[in-house]
């Protein structure tokens, strides 16, 4: 059996959460994120629940599976419902492995929103991770309510008119114990948040901005740099919300202009050279976030941040 070094341990390929042979495009954010989730869980394997999205194609075709964990493919809107059943039975049988929903933005912001809202309101014991590529990747690149204003998709051919939905505010409104945003360009912060989510009970919501060269019309080798730019420019803030009411910002923007982020992705071609709408979005977003942090800061009891 081929083995490879992962941290200090020798791990067989078949023991990875994301195994070689998966179908992810080159430069896909899922490839980084799934490996980091695996590393943060330190060998513990979750049960995965994945709705219709690129993430289920990742597994490859039956009978092979690129996931080194038991995985259920849910209908598009149902992953938190299936996860509710799975985690209920796990609890009744005193099984402790985490149940993780792994879903795209379409399954999260759009078709699955009612199901997620209900599972969050019941505070079901699961980690819900949305890898947000801001587009319907699986069906060839249509708009979602996570698609930012200005972005060209196959259903917004002259650039989307509406702003991206604030899913974090929606989840905070459910008073779930833990919600956080994660970047595939910030490994330490990412790993810490996965561990934090793992150590928390109840409904945990994690949002990853997930680069998608195929949908973003960007170069695969630019993926992590693009996410780094999104964080530095303030477009994708890294923060945590505890119990839906206490906020903590993990990284503030360093003033990087948004122009290069736009120029390196042809999905922004309709607004090329005109960053004003994204700039206005960033400004409003930080106005809201700074206000929340000021009014409702995290406390010492919220632990390491």
């Amino acid at each position: 059996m081929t083995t490879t070094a992962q941290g200090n341990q020798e791990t067989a390929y078949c023991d990875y959460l994301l195994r070689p042979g998966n179908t992810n495009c080159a430069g896909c954010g899922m490839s980084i994120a799934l490996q980091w989730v695996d590393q943060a869980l330190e060998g513990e394997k979750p049960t995965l629940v994945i709705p219709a999205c690129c993430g289920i194609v990742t597994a490859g075709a039956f009978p092979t599976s690129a996931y080194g964990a038991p995985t259920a493919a849910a209908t598009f809107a149902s992953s938190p419902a299936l996860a509710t059943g799975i985690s209920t039975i796990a609890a009744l049988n005193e099984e402790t492995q985490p149940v993780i929903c792994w879903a795209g933005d379409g399954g999260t912001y759009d078709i699955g929103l009612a199901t997620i809202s209900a599972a969050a309101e019941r505070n079901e014991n699961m980690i819900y991770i949305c890898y947000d590529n801001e587009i319907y990747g699986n069906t060839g690149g249509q708009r979602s309510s996570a698609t930012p204003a200005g972005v060209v998709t196959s259903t917004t051919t002259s650039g989307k008119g509406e702003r991206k939905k604030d899913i974090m505010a929606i989840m905070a409104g459910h008073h779930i114990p833990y919600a956080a945003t994660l970047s595939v360009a910030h490994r330490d912060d990412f790993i810490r948040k996965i561990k934090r989510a793992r150590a928390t009970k109840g409904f945990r919501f994690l949002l990853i901005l997930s680069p998608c060269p195929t949908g973003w019309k960007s170069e695969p080798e630019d993926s992590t740099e693009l996410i780094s730019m999104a964080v530095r420019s303030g477009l994708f803030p890294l923060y945590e919300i505890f119990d839906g009411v206490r906020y903590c910002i993990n990284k503030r923007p360093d003033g990087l202009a948004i122009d290069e982020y736009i120029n390196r992705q042809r999905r922004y071609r309709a607004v090329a050279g005109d960053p004003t709408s994204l700039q206005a979005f960033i400004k409003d977003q930080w106005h809201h976030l700074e206000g929340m942090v000021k009014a409702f800061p995290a406390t010492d009891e919220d632990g390491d941040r």
Partner: protein
Amino acid sequence: MARELVTGNHAAGHTLALAGEANSAARGCCAGAYPITPQTEIIEYLRRFDFTKGRVVPVESEHSAMGVCIGASLAGARSFTASSSNGIAYMVENIFAAGFYRLPIVMIAVNRTLGPPWNIWVDQGDSLMVRDAPWLQFYCDSHQDLVDTILLSFRVAEDSRIMLPTIVAMDGFVTSHTQMVVDLPEQEQVSAFLPVCNVGHRLQHERPTTIGGLTWPRETEHHRIEIQKSMERVPEVLTEAIDTFEKIFGRRPAGVLAATQTEDADTVIIACNTIARTLGNVVKARRKNNERIGMVRAKMFRPFPRAELISAIGSAKRVGVLDRNHSPGSGGIFWQEIAATLRQCPDVLLQNYLVGLGGGDVTPEIIDSIIDDLNGRTESVEPIWKEIAA
């Protein structure tokens, strides 16, 4: 065994709860619960029940009710729910998913008219909407039949030779909200009758596979063929289950169908659910007048018992099918199946009657007039609407 005067919904809720409780020695039980008239009392009963190892999850929709059942069943538990009408319509995507996953979930369908316009009364169009899903379907004519069929359903659905979900249907209000004296089973009997639920292909950490991911045409074809083969095994497995049932409960529920006085009948009428009970009285009365008439109560709709139906019809010259459901542009849905079955009997005059749609009361007089019509026919015509309100 307790003989009690209970509603159909009470009987169903009680039986589901005991079946769930009977799996406490294994991985427990779980139900997704969402209200809709006329099944609501079933999920209310389940929410009140104090399970030793089980949970009833109050979800936000029927789609998620079935989603929770799927998750629980994938995790190896016994799982069940109940719905009606638009609830079943809203659930359809996950109804298909549950069958394709091969999960032995049991769902009570309290038959109700689909809307809008809103009508809460009985019509079998809701459960028949999912006739092409990989689910067994049973239609019950009484409270006792309901209790017994629910128990049989768990046993058959969870049998490793079958591994398919099952719908147990009853008439909205006529059964769900009226009281009859029922032999309600005791927990020990149910636990003796139902082996613990073992979903062999459940999610397991020792065996990390992806269930329900991508398949190519070849595997998909195999998957469908396997489902068909399992369907074909149902009559045999059901008969075994009934034999065991009789030993434990001392009575013998109907199997795939129930034929009455068809041996020498020239005219045979087919109906399901409570219309079949009214029909039984009409047939009895007509027999007293020496009419050569018989009836078949259609009970199992999926798999459709073709061979059993042909032998039940015997040498009848005329067969009338009463449908309390309607497939627009075609006719009654039971009639469609029966017409496909009777293509092997070209000499039989088969006539469809659409009756009691939207819950109209199908009285003995109406059935009598249908039989008179059928007996006077020399050839069959398009499905006939027998309007009750007219």
